[in-house]
């Protein structure tokens, strides 16, 4: 009986240890992802070439499945399996395009990593400061452990990419359910950049 405080302490130490190990792991993974992205961007000659060369790198480090699911929200359960695949595929293209449009080939940001935190088990947030074209931005990466650590959201100055699309998907879903969401996504992806 007297052992219970000790057990509690031991489990707390264990949890703490696991949390810091996972934040370090996630941080390391993010650093590798960022350097690979910059490496791929370096090889691109133009904006459209950049989108193409970033795709395989981003697909390795970003969980587009989780991003799409969260951006759609509870309505996701109403999507058929095919619709879920289609929505993920379209949203992936849109996110890669959005991400690529923020980089100009030849001009690269300087990124400083700050201390990461673990808001919940299996989740890590890595705040960074990004110096780009003379301006400084606070960028936070949300990461989750699913087949290794993967990025699930990017927040620029507190503005979440996923939440921003959630607001838009929400309106489409209310208008016409899953078909309206997919229709609007297709239309946006089809627009010339």
């Amino acid at each position, binding site marked *: 009986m007297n052992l219970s405080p000790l057990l509690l302490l031991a489990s707390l130490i264990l949890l703490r240890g696991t949390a810091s190990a996972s934040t370090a792991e996630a941080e390391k993974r993010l650093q590798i992802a960022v350097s690979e992205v910059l490496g791929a961007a370096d090889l691109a000659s133009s904006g459209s070439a950049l989108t193409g060369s970033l795709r395989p790198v981003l697909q390795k480090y970003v969980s587009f499945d989780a991003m799409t*699911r*969260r*951006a*759609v*929200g*509870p*309505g*996701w*359960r*109403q999507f058929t399996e095919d619709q879920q695949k289609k929505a993920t595929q379209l949203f992936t293209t*849109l996110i890669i*395009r*959005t991400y690529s*449009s*923020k980089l100009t080939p030849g001009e690269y940001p300087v990124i400083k990593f700050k201390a990461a935190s673990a808001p919940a088990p299996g989740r890590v947030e890595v705040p960074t*400061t990004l110096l780009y074209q*003379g*301006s400084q931005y606070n960028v936070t990466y949300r990461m989750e452990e699913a087949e290794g650590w993967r990025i699930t959201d990017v927040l*620029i*100055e*507190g*503005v*979440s990419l*996923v*939440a*921003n*699309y*959630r*607001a*838009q*998907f*929400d*309106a*489409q*879903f*209310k208008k016409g359910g899953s078909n309206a969401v997919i229709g*609007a*996504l297709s*239309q*946006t992806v089809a627009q010339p950049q």
Partner: protein
Amino acid sequence: MKRHTSLLPFLLAVSSVPLLTSCTSVPRKPPGPSLSAAVRNNKLDAKPAKAKEDDLDEYSTASVADPFEPLNRAIFWLNDGVYTVALRPISKGYEKVLPKPVRQGIDNAFENVKFPVRLINNALQGNFKRAWLETERFFVNTVIGFGGIVRQSDRFPSLADVPAADTGQTFAKWGIGHGAYIVLPLLGPSSLRDTVGLAGDYALNPVNLATTLYGGYAWTIAIPSTNTLRAMPDELAKYDSATKNALDRYLAARSSYIQYRHKAALK
């Protein structure tokens, strides 16, 4: 000229105004506002959730009442047209005429002069430590940064990253909500609370003081106009960043604005 002094300086006072994408504090609604409602209406929440979908509701839409949505949308698209037809060419011209270091110096000087906005709002928020840091920052930049042109404060770690304070943020910290979302002509996304905040920032910005005191002279308009011009490239970049690749650009701008203001109120 005199008749311009009432409205024009205000419109030109973008200086103190976090223009197209600023921020606010909204107490977040409990998760799952409109979409959850839609799901409930369809009686779909009775379906068992798959294990991975438990987190589906964590990204609830940032909440703000938008009772004037039709009018807001009209102003949003009008602004969008004005940005394309007038402001973008002006902004590009400005970027072409002046090299980046010169523009940066002008930006720094105007931001430095806005010191009273940050000082007074930090004090009103009861954050005297930050008010003191702002004071240090102002003196460092003014004295050794050639009147604020060079941001020498960045050399000091304690002064490099002091969060900016504004009047709308002060209201948020006092617990005042947005009221309603509104899109202002030219200035873009705002709310009832933040519009009052803008008026406060305007009054506290020394750049606008001359216009208020000596309205009627051309130079009293020239300074706020320069301020508007120098802020344009950055504000248009923020606008583009928020609305590019959006399914609905109005909703994208609104969501970005509310999230940004929410974050600012937490700083």
